[in-house]
């Protein structure tokens, strides 16, 4: 697992897996879209509007997951002085930002027909909006310093502070009365979502994750190259 903290090992490892990854993510996305648009049934309450879920939920999960990964890399990077951790932080922040935007837009499009409103200031929606702001600030800091060592540390500290938002997003629907419904899938109980709808959701999540990994690899490689360029 050295490739997670060593740029040379990372380059070697990802050169092997990147081509199968292209193929796999393409297949997954096609199969997932087929399932979610044609093969999955209509919901008993929401009709075919439920299909927005297959985009909305995976992008929300990935937005949170990417921030979580950045938090781990920030803590490890600051504590053990690993430069590769900061390279990863710089590379994957925009990906998380895009997933947060997708999540907010699809959620809005889903909310209008179902709830009767594009946007309300309930705890879940507000905390995700704050997540987007934190992501944007991280991306902006990444582009606004000339001293890389200083920038990296500020970004890492900001990510650690921003990570407080993650449990708040996750548990907001349980702690407070919100318009957003609570989680359908949790570890401790059987999912309250039918298997015919769970399968497309999981395939879409897998394909979104694969695409995120793919773009991350390309961006991290680019970041490694550009830093080597600056040093030499």
């Amino acid at each position, binding site marked *: 697992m050295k490739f997670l903290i060593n740029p040379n090992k990372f380059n070697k490892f990802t050169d092997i897996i990147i081509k199968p990854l292209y193929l796999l993510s393409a297949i997954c996305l096609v199969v997932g879209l087929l399932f979610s648009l044609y093969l999955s*049934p*209509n*919901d*008993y*309450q*929401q*009709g075919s509007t*439920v299909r927005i*879920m297959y985009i909305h939920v995976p992008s929300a999960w990935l937005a949170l997951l990417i921030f979580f990964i950045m938090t781990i890399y920030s*803590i490890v990077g*600051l*504590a*053990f*002085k690993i430069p590769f951790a900061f390279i990863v932080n710089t590379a994957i922040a925009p990906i998380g930002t895009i997933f947060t935007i997708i999540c907010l837009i699809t959620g809005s499009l889903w909310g209008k*027909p*179902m*709830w*009767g*409103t594009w946007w*309300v*200031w*309930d*705890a879940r929606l507000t905390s995700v909006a704050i997540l987007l702001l934190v992501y944007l600030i991280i991306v902006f800091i990444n582009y606004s310093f000339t001293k890389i060592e200083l920038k990296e540390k500020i970004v890492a500290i900001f990510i*650690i*502070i921003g*990570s*407080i938002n993650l*449990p*708040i997003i996750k548990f907001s629907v349980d*702690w*407070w*009365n*919100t*318009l957003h*419904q*609570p*989680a*359908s899938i949790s570890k401790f109980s059987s999912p*309250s*979502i*039918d298997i*015919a*709808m769970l399968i497309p959701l999981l395939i879409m999540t897998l394909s979104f994750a694969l695409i995120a990994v793919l773009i991350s690899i390309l961006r991290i490689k680019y970041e490694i190259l550009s830093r080597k360029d600056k040093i030499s």
Partner: protein
Amino acid sequence: MTLRFQRLLLILLSLLFLLSAILLILFNSKKNIVFFYTPSELLENNVELNKTIRIGAFVQKGSFKKIADRTYEFNLSDKKNFIKVMYTGFLPDLFREEQGAVIEGILISKKLIKASTVYAKHDENYMPNSIKKSLELNEYWQRKY
């Protein structure tokens, strides 16, 4: 303990303190963060009349009445208490009896509210339409929402 583990400990501790500070703020301002009150919470708390407030609960079965064109009347109930709602305007697609709804409006008394907006609230259960139909055929459909 080496220097790097001291740094790790410091970062984790400061994260913990910051987290507890934020959670303390959030939990102590719970009244302002909740999106809506349930009818029971409304009775328990001191809520000023003639102010805008949001109330969420289930639409009581058999209480929905159409008074005039786009003017409706229904009860919101959380099984213990209920509140009567008067509303003029459009209802969202998902609005129906025994479904969750959140309304925003001016509180006239603790048992009557004049709504200006109605949101439908849906729950976390997803099920194919065909299964619901076959369940109904077998009279196995018992979930009440």
